[in-house]
């Protein structure tokens, strides 16, 4: 066990920092707790930054140069994610393309589909991922959007919901039911669907925050060529497990770093609000500090197992722990503002309303990507080895 990295890793870090210092757009230089705004349009600076990251091998460093990487080692990937996260810099404002679609096409697609991966990762083609449905949230495998074979095509009918960036996406990586006669996990397939297909309608759905980022997608007898099937027919459930295996050992970094930056912000608010000597505030901040820093250590510990090719049960805890922690940190940031906690007028509150905004966003963290309840069930059975209920 040791605290420091080797010279090779530090050289990698130096090169990265030089790039970030020169290229991070002004719009996100100070770091942001959230992405997504009133407008669903992807800002120009974001597209340009993503393309630049790709062209310099900094988009997905573990990939080869033609896929926006530089064949980085797991350790270098950890350093990469850590440096980005500590600055609050996101690689992309639409993570589906580079984090889910690109890697899944590379792993499961045919040659022609693999060829679509670079533009998905570079952000030249914007993708959405059609997973959740009105009756298939946590129980994703019960999805009902039907794809019925018809000559050289599938006819797709159904509804997707909470589909991020559907209103600006060109293509949808869409999970559909292709066999109703078998167990629900075994009758799912993935189709690539053009968003301008006849019969496909997108209705933006505002977030609780007021921002427009996700949408409902209605599919009414949409004709999809059979060649748009990804992987084998009825093997779609396997593909849900696919996304970015290279980075799985370090996905926790972003959420821990975000919690850490927020915590540092809390200390500054406490100072500005004259609560520096308040015993309750001090103890609460110290408890949060303990939590943030022990979770970072836990992430590193899991990474050590991951980098050696072992399973890392530690990481099963990270999403659950960091999403709940961030909610408490942002809520405390509001509480520190006293009666102004509920005020959102930027003129009157700390940092233009950052805390109120981030608190609202953080409420999604325990729902999206697997609810905290599902996470607890998974940890109970898979990590603690408890019998299924």
């Amino acid at each position, binding site marked *: *066990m*040791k605290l*420091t990295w080797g010279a090779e890793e530090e050289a990698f870090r130096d090169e990265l920092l030089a790039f970030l210092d020169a290229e991070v757009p002004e719009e996100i230089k100070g770091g942001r707790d959230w992405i997504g705004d009133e407008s669903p349009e992807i800002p120009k600076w974001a597209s340009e930054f993503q393309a630049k990251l790709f062209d310099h091998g900094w988009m997905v460093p573990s990939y080869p140069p033609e896929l926006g990487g530089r064949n980085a080692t797991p350790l270098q990937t950890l350093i990469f994610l850590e440096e980005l996260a500590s600055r609050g810099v996101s690689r992309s404002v639409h993570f589906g393309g580079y984090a889910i679609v690109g890697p899944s096409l590379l792993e499961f697609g045919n040659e022609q589909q693999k060829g679509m991966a670079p533009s998905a990762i570079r952000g030249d083609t914007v993708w959405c991922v059609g997973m959740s449905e009105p009756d298939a949230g946590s129980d994703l495998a019960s999805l009902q959007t039907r794809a019925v074979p018809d000559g050289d095509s599938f006819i797709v009918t159904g509804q997707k919901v909470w589909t991020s960036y559907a209103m600006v996406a060109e293509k949808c990586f869409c999970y559909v039911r292709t066999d109703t006669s078998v167990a629900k996990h075994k009758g799912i397939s993935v189709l690539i669907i053009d968003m301008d297909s006849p019969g496909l309608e997108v209705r933006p759905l505002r977030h609780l925050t007021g921002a427009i980022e996700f949408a409902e997608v209605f599919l009414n007898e949409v004709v999809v060529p059979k060649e748009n099937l990804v992987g084998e027919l009825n093997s779609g459930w396997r593909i849900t497990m696919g996304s970015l295996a290279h980075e799985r050992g370090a996905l926790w970094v972003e959420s821990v770093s975000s919690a850490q930056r927020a915590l540092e912000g809390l200390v500054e608010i406490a100072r500005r609000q004259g609560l520096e000597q308040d015993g309750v505030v001090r103890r609460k901040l110290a408890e949060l*500090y303990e939590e943030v*820093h*022990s979770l970072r250590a836990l992430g*590193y510990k899991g990474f050590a197992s991951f980098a050696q090719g072992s399973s890392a049960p530690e990481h099963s805890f990270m999403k659950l722990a960091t999403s709940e922690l961030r909610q408490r940190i942002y809520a405390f940031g509001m509480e520190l503002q006293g009666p102004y906690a509920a005020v959102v007028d930027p003129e009157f509150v700390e940092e233009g309303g950052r805390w109120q905004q981030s608190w609202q966003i953080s409420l999604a963290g325990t729902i999206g990507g697997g609810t905290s309840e599902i996470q607890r069930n998974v940890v109970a059975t898979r990590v603690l080895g*408890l019998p299924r209920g």
Partner: protein
Amino acid sequence: MDFTLNEDQVLLRETARAMFGNECPPELVRDAFYDVTSSGPEAASSFFDRHLRDWAALGDAAVVDLCLFMEEAGRVLAPGPAWVNTSLFLPLLRAIEHPSADLVAAGEVTGTVAVCGSDGYWVLNNDPMRSFVPHANEVDVVAILSAGNQVSCVAVAELDLQEVATLDRSRPVFQFAVPAGLDSTEIGAEQLAVVLNRGTVALAAELIGVGRWLMDTTLEYVRERVQFDRPVGSFQGLQWKLVDAALLLERADAAVYYAAMCLDAGAPEQDRAVHVAKAAAGIAARRWARDGLQSLGGIGFTWEHDLHLRLRRAQASEQLLGSASWHHDRLAELIFAPD
């Protein structure tokens, strides 16, 4: 930041685990616990004499290594003064270049440290009394620390020890009046902090071991115990409680070894890391004692089940070298300190 154990560390952990597994069965631990005769805990001292004196030199080793050992000791609740002798007494003698340090490392002389005044806080003072002195009846020498960073080593035989019964009979603590006119040596403030940090992280590692035993025992029980025709561990109400407790223990475990690495590297954040480690470990071990007991139900609330031994150790060790609240308050001082 690399949590990978090297080969020597893997070997150390396996050797310690095998030794405790073979030589320190639950019966021995119970005997040590229940034997509170006036002659002292014989089972404890004989186990220490036969098996733990050989490990005293770990007090000179990397803190990570020391923690690997202490975690195993905590898991079985090894009787005797190994923690205080190895993690505090030996490093303290090294820091003041005491001539007996080599004898302590060789396992020939043993000792404990006396820090707290009557108030029980682990802060240097001029109180006429020293309290919460661990294992003083099982060692040869007591190192008394006093205000002004003064260290005096006194033979136990020269002290009038009074045991103060605590919840945890397996770690007896004593108080005594500080004799007048002791010779003393000054220890540098930084060196003293290093010694106390070392002892604190080692105690936190022991708490992790206590927590691991409680977690393993609880999970095993709820997998097997059937009520309403199903294992109680299949009930979601119990599962979620145990998941939350498991998270506390896993992050405390990582925090302890992170702090150990910081101490070994002399990292600037070492004080913060030690406060985090001890607070997290104390919270996690106590949580497992409580939730473990609740999960075991009636059998856990008996004298014959070994759970209560760990519940007592968790509760008592929380107070040694500072409770979670105490460490949180020290942490707050560092968080708000000007850079």
